[in-house]
């Protein structure tokens, strides 16, 4: 009896030592090739480089759709901004809710100080002071909303770079609204249907309890049409839509030529919406 107990205690001791020591041994002998942190590229094939600054984006690959808003052509024409908003609202069944807390916005107008919070508005020009600016989801290349979404209801659509939403999957936690530095997301506090003036039969509405945002008119692009806002102000030629990664696209031609700014570029979200102010 005594002998057996002695043997049991010996085996138990050795086993415990081996158990405690094993993780350290595995860690020391593991091959670095298997480590997951090396050779990582982001969704757009852009090598994740740190310290390269928010302005530098190296070796872009694939399509990354973007928008360029030439505000010079919109100054003094607030009706054009309203027209772009109205076109979007109509196409996407966006409700008109008269409350700052509950309103749903995909594209809207806002003063310079609200649109470009990191730019100084001190002694700004008359034009800057008096005009509203057109703002929408920036379809960032590094979207914070996508990082925080716990259900992957919002994601980067890999063929276009559009930051898209799957409303079937949204649980309404509103983390993305906290994450988005542009306020480009709205929450449906109640059933939006009674507030929709005219329903577009080809597009769904949203339901109570989901977050919604601009989708760069993914459904229209598939039909070969331009986004509704671009089409609405076509005659002014104020909004240009295209692939930021294609050096021959119209938007790239203008970006190469003109000085443009992005909203809150210093945050490192890499917005795909550019402004000429």
């Amino acid at each position, binding site marked *: 009896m005594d002998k057996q107990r002695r043997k049991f205690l010996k085996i138990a001791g050795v086993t415990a030592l081996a158990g405690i020591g094993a993780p350290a041994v595995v860690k020391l002998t593991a091959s670095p090739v298997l480590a997951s942190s090396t050779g990582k590229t982001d969704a757009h094939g852009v090598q994740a480089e740190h310290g390269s600054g928010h302005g530098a984006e190296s070796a872009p690959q694939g399509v990354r759709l973007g928008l360029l808003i030439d505000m010079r052509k919109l100054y003094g024409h607030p009706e054009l901004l309203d027209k772009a908003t109205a076109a979007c609202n109509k196409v996407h069944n966006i409700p008109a809710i008269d409350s700052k807390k509950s309103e749903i916005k995909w594209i809207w107008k806002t003063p310079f100080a609200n649109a470009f919070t990191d730019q100084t508005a001190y002694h700004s020009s008359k034009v800057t002071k008096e005009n509203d600016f057109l703002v929408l989801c920036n379809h960032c290349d590094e979207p914070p909303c996508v990082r925080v979404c716990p259900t992957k209801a919002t*994601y980067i*659509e*890999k*063929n*276009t770079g559009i930051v*898209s939403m*799957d*409303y*079937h999957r949204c649980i309404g936690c509103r983390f993305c609204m906290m994450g988005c530095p542009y306020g480009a997301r709205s929450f449906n506090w109640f059933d939006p*249907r*009674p507030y*929709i*003036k*005219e*329903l*577009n*039969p*080809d*597009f*769904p*509405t*949203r*339901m*109570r309890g989901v977050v919604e945002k601009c989708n760069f008119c*993914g*459904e229209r692009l*598939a039909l070969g049409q331009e986004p509704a806002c671009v089409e609405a102000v076509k005659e002014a030629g104020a909004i240009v839509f295209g692939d930021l990664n294609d050096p021959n696209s119209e938007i790239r031609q203008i970006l190469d030529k003109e000085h443009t700014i992005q909203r809150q570029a210093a945050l490192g979200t890499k917005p795909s919406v550019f402004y000429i102010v």
Partner: protein
Amino acid sequence: MYNKGTIIPGLIIFVLLVTFPLWFNAFSTASDVPKVELPPGGEKQCVAPAAEMRASHMVMLNEWRDEVLRDGKRTAVTVGGKEYRKGLQMACMECHTNKEKFCDSCHLYTSVKPYCWDCHLTPGQAKKETH
């Protein structure tokens, strides 16, 4: 046998009570398999045979949703020379225009409550102005 007069009628009543669900269903029409309304427009063909659609339309709708939203594959499906855009509103409801007589009849019978129409519009809703 003792108490034959009570035992035998009692047994008969017992058996009748126990089998009540069976013969009640046999004579009532409440549980008849619902007859769905065929497309009012007279379309005879769907994206898949009727039996397959009946059994797994929900799987197809989920696949379409994921293809359209996640993979950006919005190209229409062509079956028998006819193009169907991927989507509940854009394909299914184009022919099956009456949700109440088509979708609801089976969903009620099988007691499933899909949440499609929380967001998606039926042709009837899309037509009428809400304000």
